[in-house]
């Protein structure tokens, strides 16, 4: 098992190298550079050249690549050209916001998707099953940004039930001195402030639903088909013949065996959430990694785009590795070597 993990981690290296080359070529092939964004359109060629020299943009591309990678190996992922904050610092302050949002979205997706899929599978062919199938196809088809706008309009603008902007009501609560940017944790565990916690949760609901809908639909579909497959297995019939209670059959026999494809999909979807987070975060003004990278793309902030993409890709690959490893625990028949 350990050998397998090590081999997968080693395989990660060429992938990340390839990715770093791809990204740096892509970014530098773009017309314009951070200097034109920082200095604006009305600037002298001298100042532009000085700025480019200061950022090392006048060197040949391979030289820039080696300089950048040398920094990466020293643990220095560079500094933003626009606000001179190091990429690692910005990432660490913003990533908790994205983690909170993604976790909440996965709670929505798993909490609703798995029971929905099981219920549909147990009533295969019924009206409820057909309804769930169509509903999950609709859930997959609605673009996140449209769903986000719809939710914001209905529950925010129209009904005034839930806030639609930001992570917390900044007029009342101040988290600027909090130790971490995990607001749920800070408000509940550190501050013991229940109204504050409720405010944070209420800000979280709409973005989490918007981000969680596609994974929800996918998880529900996979759960349904996985459970259906297991329900037809001989050992389930045997268990039923032995007179086990249906609850016990569901938990010990059906769900445990159906868990493998469900876990795969959950893992894959968790990785994909990072992409969807860009949209959700821009719509709901959520100060996470997505809106940070979006702003970097607007500013052509090369270093942030490069490092941010590399970090996200690494996380994505690691999440998938974790999923693969978790198979071995979910299904003892799988042995990695």
């Amino acid at each position, binding site marked *: 098992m350990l050998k397998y993990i090590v081999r997968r981690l080693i395989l990660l290296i060429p992938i990340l190298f390839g990715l770093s080359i791809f990204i740096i070529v892509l970014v530098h092939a773009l017309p314009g550079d951070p200097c034109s964004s920082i200095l604006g359109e009305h600037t002298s060629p001298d100042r532009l050249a000085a700025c480019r020299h200061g950022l090392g943009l006048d060197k040949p591309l391979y030289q820039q690549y080696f300089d950048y990678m040398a920094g990466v190996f020293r643990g220095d992922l560079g500094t933003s050209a626009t606000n001179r904050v190091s990429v690692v610092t910005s990432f660490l302050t913003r990533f908790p916001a994205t983690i909170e949002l993604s976790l909440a979205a996965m709670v929505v997706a798993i909490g609703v998707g798995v029971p929905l899929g099981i219920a549909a599978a147990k009533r295969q062919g019924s009206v409820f099953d057909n309804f769930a199938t169509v509903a999950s196809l609709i859930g997959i088809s609605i673009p996140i940004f449209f769903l986000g706008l719809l939710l914001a309009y209905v529950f925010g603008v129209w009904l005034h039930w839930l806030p639609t902007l930001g992570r917390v009501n900044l007029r009342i609560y101040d988290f600027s001195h909090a130790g971490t940017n995990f607001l749920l944790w800070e408000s509940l565990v550190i501050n013991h402030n229940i109204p504050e916690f409720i405010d944070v949760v209420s800000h979280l609901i709409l973005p989490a639903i918007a981000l969680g809908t596609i994974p929800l639909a996918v998880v529900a579909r996979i759960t349904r088909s996985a459970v259906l497959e297991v329900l037809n297995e001989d050992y389930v019939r045997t268990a039923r013949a032995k007179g086990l209670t249906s609850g016990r059959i569901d938990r010990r026999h059906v769900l445990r065996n159906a868990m493998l494809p469900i876990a795969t999909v959950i893992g894959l979807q968790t990785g994909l959430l990072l992409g969807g987070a*860009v949209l959700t975060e821009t719509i709901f003004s959520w100060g996470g990694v997505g809106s940070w990278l979006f702003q970097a793309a607007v500013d052509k902030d090369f270093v942030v785009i490069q490092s941010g993409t590399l970090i996200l890709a690494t996380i994505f690959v690691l999440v998938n590795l974790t999923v693969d490893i978790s198979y071995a625990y979910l299904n003892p028949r799988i042995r990695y070597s």
Partner: protein
Amino acid sequence: MALPDMQSPSALQLGGPGDGAGTEDVEVALESLSQWQLAWRRFKLHRLAAVGLCIFGFMVLMAIFGPILDPYDPIFIPNAHVPGGDPPSLAHLFGTDDVGRDVFAMVVNGARISVTIGVFSMLIAGIVGVLVGAVAGYVGGLVDNVLMRIVDVFFAIPFLFVILVASRFFGQGQLIPLILIFGLLSWPLISRLVRAMFLSLREADFVEAARAVGVSDFRITFRHILPSALGPVIVAMTLIMASNIVLEAFVSFLGFGLTEDQTSWGNALSNAQTVLSQGNWWWAFFPGMAIALTVLAINFIGDGLRDALDPRSRL
């Protein structure tokens, strides 16, 4: 067991890594036309697919003929009667935007762009994906290794983000570059699928027989193996079409896609977002519904195709 990633139907699946199709799951025998006729029969019985085909057909017709028949010019700016736009009325079925442009005209003209992008980027992704996958799977060895590592890199890329950057700066707000970008970034899924099937099919008896008779590699690849592998590829291509239509709307929505003067659904949504808080929902609602309906229709069709072409798959 089939790997779930191929079969998970999400329209936004393309960023995910996976191992392609479960090879043993693929229906192998397609010796004669009757297999396709069988598939067509199964497809026709699929009610959702029929609904999807109707909706998508309607969208295509709207894309072709709509702009000719529609009385309003989506770009022409009359004077708005109400600040922030008129609500839906008989004159303007879907209302107007803040400067009085007809939203219905936007939806109709946007269909043209979305359908064009969806169809052509799907074809590009299909052709590139099949070629790469066929070469990797049939030749094998070093070529296979190199090609698949490239595919790995593509799968590790934060897809939505790269497509955002690429469309803004290479797309230049024009349609054809955007189609190329979407097509050239979405082929890896198909190439993995094709490769997996080639790996198993090239050892199949009928291929060996063909080789023994002296059939050329080119002919074996395209005449003998590819038709057997085509079913799942077609299903994957429908998913790619749906996801690329959403992607166009996505990049245009964030202001990184088509220029403002082109009426795409994403542009309409993006402009409408700013005034949504004033309560004029129609400007965002109808273009958004158009995207959702089109994608839904394609997913319905994909579902039907999956049942028809890949009857043993679990979804």
